[in-house]
């Protein structure tokens, strides 16, 4: 991907297909055990805007076992029509059976745009489908739009988030993209909305038994940064792995997850799963608390779209403060426990403001 490179329309892949019958924006809903991933509803929210702009219906595709409830939910979240493929064989995600259902629906109902979450499963599935169709696929989009030629403008970070690139697919339909979790806003859930439901036959093939999901172990230790509403992240300023327990305490009080800068991960203080920013996870929580993080560009690009950013650092000149809505200059070893205490006190209700103050000052004194 070179900068400012304009490609001429290709001759090679042009075909005689009449793409004009392709209409509608489709979101493939990702679920586990009947619970949708938040990114699916976020994508429906953004796709609603695209569909309205194109004057096209908003379509959802739900694949799984006993997922009828999700079809209704997709309607509540903005879909006009929901394709449902429900079969015991589809209980767990597997590439072949799921892609066969997607291919059937795409070929039968011809959406002009197909979107899915840029999750592990979503990227696994999208890569397979785009190859089979074939069509163009843009990974990890963070901005989506359509133009007057009905082209999908999918923009994504490039070169370790240092640049953004807008990718088009002019010659094929559907135009496909995966999009990151936390980027787009879901529509408010509206139970008065209802979507037309179209049942799709499962496309089972005997060879599917060659792959079996033996089990799933939920990781409680490993936080899920992408879906987190609150992240408390630590950097080099923590001085060692021990201080992450203070961050964990604050994160628990706020119902959030613990993140880290690359520096802290490289020093081996915490696992890579916690890394925010370049080569880590791009996050967009509602509240991001950066503790002892200086604010290197690579970190900032990975968290700058958080709704509110709080920075706690002993150096008031640290770049992180330029991106923070609220700044506290001081000793994190005092501030973080005091904050955790204050949050617990306020969230438990019951206490008068004076009582909170008293508890908090006790914590601040280290009692």
């Amino acid at each position, binding site marked *: 991907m070179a900068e400012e*490179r304009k*490609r001429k329309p290709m001759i*090679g892949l042009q075909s005689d297909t009449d793409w004009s019958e392709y209409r509608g924006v489709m979101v493939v809903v990702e679920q*586990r055990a009947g619970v949708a991933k938040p990114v699916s509803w976020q994508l429906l929210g953004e796709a609603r805007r695209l569909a309205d702009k194109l004057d096209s219906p908003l379509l959802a595709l739900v694949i799984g076992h006993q997922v009828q409830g999700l079809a209704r939910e997709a309607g509540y979240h903005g879909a006009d029509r929901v394709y449902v493929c429900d079969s015991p064989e589809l209980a767990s995600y597997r*590439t072949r059976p799921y892609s066969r259902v997607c291919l059937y629906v795409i070929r039968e109902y011809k959406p002009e745009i197909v979107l899915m979450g840029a999750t*592990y499963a979503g*990227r*696994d599935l*999208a*890569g*397979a489908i*785009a190859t089979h169709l074939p069509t*163009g*696929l843009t*990974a990890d989009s963070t901005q989506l739009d359509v133009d007057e030629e009905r082209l999908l*403008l999918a923009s994504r970070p490039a*070169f*370790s988030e*240092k*640049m*953004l690139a*807008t*990718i*088009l*697919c002019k010659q094929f339909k559907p135009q496909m993209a995966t999009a990151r979790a936390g980027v787009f806003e879901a529509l408010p859930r509206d139970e008065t909305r209802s979507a037309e439901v179209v049942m799709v036959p499962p496309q089972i093939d005997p060879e599917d038994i*060659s*792959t079996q*999901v*033996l*089990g*799933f172990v939920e*990781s409680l230790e490993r936080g*899920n940064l*992408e879906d987190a*509403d609150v992240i408390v992240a630590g950097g080099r300023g923590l001085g060692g792995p021990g201080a992450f327990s203070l961050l964990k305490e604050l994160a628990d009080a706020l119902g959030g997850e613990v993140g880290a800068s690359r520096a802290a991960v490289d020093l081996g203080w915490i696992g890579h799963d916690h890394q925010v920013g370049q080569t880590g996870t791009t996050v967009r929580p*509602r*509240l991001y608390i950066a503790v002892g993080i200086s604010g290197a560009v690579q970190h*900032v*690009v990975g968290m700058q779209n958080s*709704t*509110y950013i709080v*920075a706690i650092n002993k150096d008031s000149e640290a770049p992180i403060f*330029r*991106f*923070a*809505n*609220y*700044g*506290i*200059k*001081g000793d994190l070893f005092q*501030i973080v426990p*005091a904050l955790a*205490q*204050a949050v617990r006190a*306020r969230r438990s*209700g019951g206490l008068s403001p004076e009582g909170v103050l008293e508890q*908090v000052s*006790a*914590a601040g004194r280290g009692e």
Partner: protein
Amino acid sequence: MLHLVVCIKQVPDSREIRIDPKTNTLVRLGVPAIINYYDLHGLEEALRLKDEFGARVTVVSMGPPSAEKALKQCISMGADEAVLVSDRAFAGADTLATSYVVALTIQKVEERWGTVDIVFCGKQTLDGDTGQVGPGVACRLDIDQLTYVEKLETLDLATREVTVHRHLEDGVERVKARLPVLITALAELNRPRRASLPGILRAARYQPIVWTTNDFPTIDRAKIGLRGSPTIVSKTWVPEPKQVQTQWVPSEDIAAAATALLDHLYSTDLPQKLGWA
């Protein structure tokens, strides 16, 4: 004998790429070319299986002639053969066109050295970051894909079954599949070895096999390079991290600072959005 193919790509070390603040363009001068980090984990896993079961490990790469250096590095680590697919006609390929050429290459490798049991790829490249070529290759070869693998638990040669741990956002999935399969590797999979002295000596003399379009009589030229790529980069730009006005919370009194910060946060829509009482 097991036949393992490892797909690698030589990439610019994107961590070293800088943006020229004046022109807002990429500065690539002096940026070192490295083997895509995740591909090395694919190679290590193949070499680990070779150590345990005995195997032929063939490394393949599509890229410019300078990628020979990356392939020689794989030989020094213990790979048996290395194939570079290189032709100007391949330039400008997106993931769809790339997976076509890589799949053709693997088929040709099979004609030459026997059927392939496992294809290893990195989970994604550092320069493209898409993770789409692995699934694309699996599709074209019509084999099962096991993506984002963090552990290869067992390989049973009698039943030809492999059990792996796939990394997901919220946990780990154990999956069993029948060979042949394509596996995409995470960094957690293993720790790549250093080159051995005999490996370094062998690599010094080794000349990777180079194939061009002429070596693929059945290749469809409409499906390769720029022509065969459905996606187009229409524009690129440098995002400006948005600076905001920072509200400073006085911190002389720690407890008061904590309360003051919470007051600020409670005056926003956070309590409502997060369901704080």
